[in-house]
């Protein structure tokens, strides 16, 4: 691992720089550290930062640039592919990279020597077999052209890595030495170190923004690519969902949206009444003892991973519902064809959302000022009348916000619907029919071997984009409502 060694070397250089910087600072003050502007350690840190920052920046830049430059310079060697056909060229180039990495691995494992690599003949030697010995599987045939390109890329990479090591280590030493020469007793070392730390903190805080930008860009980029292959109107208004890998797919989002909304509504019909009444009871009626037991018990439901709920839907709730509503069931109706159904997923998702609704509503009901309740009691209202006519109306915006947040959770939930809702994309009204959702189709289209080139794989990004926009909209709306309401009583 040469990369690891470079890092270790950098750390050693930085530590040396720290010690030297510290010493030099104390020396420059004639051994009396009181004459220094900052504590001696800060001079050491300052020198170490001087050694690390430029070298790590160069290292990062080099590691991004090297593969690109290597690929650009070996691309002309691939004569069998038209230069304009960038997709095929990319495939061949990734093959070349694979082969050259495989050769490296084979040399490292001792299966072959450097000289033997130079003498390899793609037509006569079994290179594929050699590479698979060291665990590198190459998909397509290795032509002489690819082998030559792989050799060239190996050579270039070896030279590149050598120069990288030299340049990076030289930069570290030069940076450290430069920082060392600047040390004087009146250098504001602490302020320099602290402003550096401040930049590190700002960078960390910006990662949240970068993540969002990453999500948005990766969704937009691939969605645009998808709409280049498939018409947007057909996607948003199509009534059929029939992906075929050979092409000619029907990729209409409406049946998926229907399933998503249907299952979410079932889930909310379960979660909202139970959660809301539980919250009312816990905040208005329950004694301290009951609250201490019941509140954590409900919140345990929120800490259980969704895969557990998914399995619960698939193996417990589904068969249970089928034995009641299915063929030959207790109720004698034949509404349910299979255990996978919108009802199964919706019911279990509702259970998962109960603590979500109850704890949010609990907070909101508790935030209603006691004076409003006292006023109502003073007029002779009973407790339930107070709740219904004073507390709930006052808390209503917050509760609506909580329900919207729960709805956004339900729409984005994946595991329960993947395991419990089935895979049939249909516009059915029967809650006991199998339905499918946006999230399950994202999983189905992106699992397995994907090349990100066909419409059937790229549609997942368009679905993800829709999902992201819808949940983000619901969240922003919910947070807006909750915030607006909080201001009223504070």
């Amino acid at each position, binding site marked *: 691992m040469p990369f690891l060694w470079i890092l270790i070397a950098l750390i050693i250089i930085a530590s040396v720089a720290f010690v030297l910087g510290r010493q030099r600072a104390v020396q420059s003050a004639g051994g009396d550290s009181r004459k220094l502007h900052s504590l001696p350690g800060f001079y050491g840190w300052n020198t170490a930062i001087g050694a690390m920052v430029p070298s790590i920046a160069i290292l990062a830049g080099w590691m991004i640039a090297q593969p690109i430059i290597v690929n650009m310079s070996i691309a002309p060697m691939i004569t069998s592919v038209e230069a304009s056909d960038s997709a095929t060229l990319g495939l061949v180039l990734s093959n070349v990279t694979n082969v050259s990495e495989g050769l490296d691995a084979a040399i490292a494992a001792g299966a072959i020597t450097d000289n033997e690599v130079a003498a390899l003949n793609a037509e006569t030697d079994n290179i594929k077999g050699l590479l698979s010995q060291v665990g590198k599987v190459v998909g397509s045939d290795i032509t002489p052209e690819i082998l030559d390109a792989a050799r060239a890329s190996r050579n270039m990479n070896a030279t590149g890595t050598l120069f990288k090591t030299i340049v990076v280590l030289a930069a570290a030493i030069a940076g450290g030495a430069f920082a060392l020469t600047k040390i004087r007793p009146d250098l504001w070392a602490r302020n320099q170190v602290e402003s550096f730390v401040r930049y590190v903190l700002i960078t960390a805080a910006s990662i949240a923004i970068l993540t969002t930008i990453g999500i948005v860009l990766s969704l937009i980029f691939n969605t645009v690519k998808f709409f280049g292959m498939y018409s947007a109107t057909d996607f948003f208004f199509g009534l059929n969902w029939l992906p075929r890998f050979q092409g000619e797919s029907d990729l209409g989002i409406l049946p998926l949206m229907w399933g998503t909304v249907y299952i979410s509504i079932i889930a909310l019909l379960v979660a909202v009444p139970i959660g809301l*009444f539980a919250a009312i009871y816990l905040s208005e009626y329950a004694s301290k003892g009951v609250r201490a037991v019941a509140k954590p018990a409900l919140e345990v439901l929120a800490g259980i991973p969704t895969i557990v709920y*998914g399995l619960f839907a698939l193996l417990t709730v589904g068969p249970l519902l089928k034995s009641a509503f299915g063929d030959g069931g207790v109720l004698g109706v034949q509404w349910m064809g299979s255990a996978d159904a919108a009802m199964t997923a919706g019911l279990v998702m509702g259970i998962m959302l*109960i603590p979500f609704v109850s704890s949010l509503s609990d907070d909101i009901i508790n935030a209603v000022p006691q004076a409003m309740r006292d006023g109502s009691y003073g007029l002779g209202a009973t407790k339930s009348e107070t709740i219904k006519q004073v507390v709930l109306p006052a808390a209503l915006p917050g509760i609506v916000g909580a329900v919207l947040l729960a709805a956004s959770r339900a729409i984005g939930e994946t595991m329960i619907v993947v395991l419990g809702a089935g895979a049939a994309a249909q516009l059915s009204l029967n809650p006991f029919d199998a339905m499918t959702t946006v999230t399950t189709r994202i999983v189905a289209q992106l699992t397995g071997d994907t090349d990100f080139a066909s419409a059937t794989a790229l549609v997942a990004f368009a679905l993800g984009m829709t999902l992201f926009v819808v949940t983000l909209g619901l969240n922003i709306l919910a947070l807006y409502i909750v915030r607006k309401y909080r201001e009223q009583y504070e």
Partner: protein
Amino acid sequence: MTDASANNSASGKSSLLVQDARTRNRNAVEARFKWYGITAIAIGCAFLILLVTAIAFNGSRAFRQTFVTVPVTLDAAAIEAAEASMMKTSQYRKMIEAALLTEVSEANIETDMDAGKLGDMLSSSAPAQMRDFVLANPDRIGDTVSFDFLTSSRVDGYLKGRVTRESLANDKNLDAAHLDLVDQMRDIGMVEKRFNIDFIIGSDASEERPEQAGMGVSILGSLFMMFVVLFLSLPIGVAASIYLEEFAPKSRWTDLIEVNISNLAAVPSIVFGILGVAVFIQIGHLPKSAPLVGGLVLTLMTLPTIIISTRAALKAVPPSIREAALGVGASKMQSVFHHVLPLAMPGILTGTIIGLAQALGETAPLLLIGMVGFIATNYPTGPIDGFLSPNSAMPAQIYEWAKRADPAYYERAWGGIIILLVFLLAMNVIAVILRRRFERRW
């Protein structure tokens, strides 16, 4: 005056001690309303109990597995012949089957099955188990060694009540006659269920051998992912929170970051999976299915949780601490790193552990970056291999088992959930203890 008092004075018979119809009605509504609340909580708790019972009832079976004890004579000539042949395990299989037949007839159990048919009750992992033993202990060749072989999942299912004679009617591997034999063998103690440590530390097995599948490799996969999450999200999360809480000026940029973080916390986890596919695999060319990629995706997902709890912990440190530090000449940076941060540490760690627990149970993003759909049989050979070579993770392994056709895998999926929940429980208990032990009220 109200209508009510007017009515009362008109009838003239009203008493404070007797409830009139309207009061009764109002009290009834009151009682009913209270009952709605109790019912709601009861339903919630009932769901919890149902869930826990389902897990405990179905999952506990996975920890016990049926073994059959067969003494096999390690005949030197036969082993040599087996090692020289192309199909090594099938030769070993013949030895085991012969030993099983002898053992059955010596126990006075009558059967008209030949050795091969009788051997169908054994797991197909038995020959490999014997071969591994022989290769590891060449000095035992010639002895008679008593092996505990796994039985096939059908036999195991029969002893656990999952497989019945009727359900075997269409089974090509096993028939009812086998089960009659199993009954007799169980009576003499040759076949018994016992605790199966391989379910916890073993590796996954192919579709036909559910009796051999274990969680071990996927537990390691999860562990490697959690390392990535911990070592990235803790420093980044703490640094981001310190900036936002202690240094950030009130500007549009900080507002934007704050809104962003609260929105990221509510983005569906599958969207993070899409991000992982697009950025780390499509653009970054990192290896698919690797715990490193899983860890990176889960880091991005956990960061908002950690930032929110860290900020709460920093906020809880009273300003007097900061002012005292500034007062004796510390810089702002020194006051934060020397005083505020150590005091907020218990709260930060609690939040981090809870964030990690969330990440440990998350499945959807792992499906997208390809941690399912293969059989995780190889233990990582070292730390680098552990981060970079394809592996599964606990929730992904459970999903994988739930998707397989053989119902014997359902039992293992439930068992896997017990292991996952034990990890989550342990993490939450640690978080609660940390909070109890170090929490300071100012």
